[in-house]
């Protein structure tokens, strides 16, 4: 039985891995093809079945005057906006979540759970509903088509995720740890920064991962709230599309844009699988 179990386990893992990896292989191979190799039927193996070219990739880095899209600027814009918005969301979200988890708030019928739900409810609305208010809001602040404006909007989108994850995390950390810190001579701020925060790294990493993913992949608001001065990567990639769909450069762009997420996921996964913090607070 154990052998059969092991066999089945690896069988399904390999099967699943194929599903996950195949699109990447397909995209990698497509990114080196030219027009004829893409439209002339399915080909897989470079040099044997098609002649690899760098045309798809070079378009990404050529300036617009040479028919390229030059993604380097938007790439750094995207990284800057996502990281800044995620960082601010995590810091504010963690503080808010700790307060919601440890202190009792009451304003009329509004209690802690209602406040938490208010945060999460920001994610229930379809983004389209928010587009016009955001547009008017940013334009009256003079922040349309600017990095600061985008960061502001992304904080609104990302902080609920951080609060949601961190409230759940703090609720599972025994209150007695904070209390012991107080008894051992910490005032409430020291208790938070010296004891609670160092033990919250796993929760913050998970929250951070989600913030980065949701910030990085957003197309809608990046599209609506920017025009020419500031452009983010997803918008720029879509701009590749013309009368002929350039599958080769789209594939290359897709690979380039997904790379940071893969790197972040690997880093976070290594921290989490250490398990030295996530299970420690039991």
């Amino acid at each position, binding site marked *: 039985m154990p052998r059969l179990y092991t066999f089945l386990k690896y069988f399904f893992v390999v099967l699943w891995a194929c599903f996950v990896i195949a699109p990447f292989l397909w995209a990698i191979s497509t990114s080196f093809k030219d027009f004829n190799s893409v439209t002339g039927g399915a080909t897989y193996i470079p040099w044997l079945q098609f002649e690899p070219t760098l045309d798809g990739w070079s378009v990404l880095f050529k300036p617009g005057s040479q028919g390229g899209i030059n993604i380097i600027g938007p790439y750094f814009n995207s990284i800057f906006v996502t990281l800044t918005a995620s960082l601010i969301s995590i810091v504010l979200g963690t503080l808010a979540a700790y307060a919601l988890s440890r202190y009792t708030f009451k304003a009329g019928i509004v209690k802690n759970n209602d406040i938490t739900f208010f945060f999460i409810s920001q994610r229930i609305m379809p983004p389209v509903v928010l587009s016009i208010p955001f547009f008017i809001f940013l334009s009256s602040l003079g922040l349309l088509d600017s990095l600061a404006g985008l960061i502001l909007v992304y904080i609104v989108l990302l902080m609920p995720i951080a609060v949601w994850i961190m409230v759940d995390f703090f609720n599972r950390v*025994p209150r*007695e*740890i904070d*209390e*012991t*810190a*107080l*008894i*051992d*001579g*910490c*005032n409430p701020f*020291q208790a938070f920064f010296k*004891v609670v925060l*160092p*033990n919250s790294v796993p929760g913050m990493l998970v929250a951070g991962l989600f913030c980065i993913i949701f910030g990085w992949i957003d197309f809608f608001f990046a599209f609506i709230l920017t025009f020419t001065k500031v452009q983010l990567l997803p918008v720029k990639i879509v701009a590749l599309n013309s009368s002929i769909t350039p599958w080769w450069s789209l594939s290359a762009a897709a690979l380039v844009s997904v790379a940071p997420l893969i790197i972040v996921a690997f880093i976070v996964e290594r921290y989490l699988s250490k398990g*030295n*913090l996530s*299970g*420690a*607070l039991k």
Partner: protein
Amino acid sequence: MSLMLNHISFKPTEEYHLNDISLRFESGKMYTILGRTLSGKTTLLKTIAGLQTPDSGSINFDDTDFLSIPVWKRNVAMVYQQFINYPHLNVRDNIAFPLKQRKMDENLIESEVKEAMEKVGLIGFESRKIQELSGGQQQRVALARSLAKKAKILLLDEPLVNLDYKLREGLREEFKKLFNVSDESNSILIYASTDPLEAMQLNGNIIVIDEGKILQSGTAKDVFENPATAKVAEITNDPAMNINKCLIQDNSLIMNDSVQIQIPDQLKSIPNGKYLVGIRATDIYLDDQGFAFDVEISEISGSETFLHLRNNNLKCVATIEEVKTYNTNEVVKINFDKSKIYLFEESGELQHSPYQ
């Protein structure tokens, strides 16, 4: 130095968690707060520590108003029933944490930590991570941290309850030694427990608490021999003392139609009437000439067997000094040690104790 609690009440909801509690703790002495789960033990300890503010009443320590001092300046130490340590610090840093917080000299911290670790037997574990330790060791770390502080008030909230039986027995012995040592330091030691046996073994002053109210306080011997009320008698015995309604009439003590005993000499002076009779489980023995009871449950505990017995509406638990399996509904004949019978008024107050 002494810690005085004056009319402390705490009522966060409909029910009292602490109900008009007045106590006096002397330094250099040990107190055991004995009560069932949710009786208010933890709330009382947290109130002394300052983690909870009572609705009314005052706490004075050494002529200072304790309630006006925040937790982090009260210089108390507390060990919880859960093993609470700082998971991000190793054993040494855990124990040193309160001392560092006090900005003590590094060398002094080093020696204090070493001393505390020696006391609880953790030498060699200095740089271990908390999560690499067993439950018993984790609790030793928590204990060492509270000892290293040399706090004037040491609060222990059922520190042994989450440990397995053998560890608990061993650590309790060490506790007793530790407490004797710490007598010199003149601190007040308050130990909360649900286990009457533990309270008796620790042999300090016992404070019996139930539903947030102090029922009795006194020495272990006193509380055991002369429980103030039937409730105290139930709480301070394990298994709980058998308390049943009875009628004293014409020199017989009537528990129900079939269980009636001749009034023993020491109870002769008690007027006829309705009472509560209290008999310890250990004062019931098997006797072929005795009363027939049905076995409801029998449980083996160590070298003893607890029999849950029933005769019509009369229920009692007996401790039999042997290991034997009884079937449910089996009929056993038992008798009561008449010289050890307690009588309580119907309202619960003690009327007669065999130790009076």
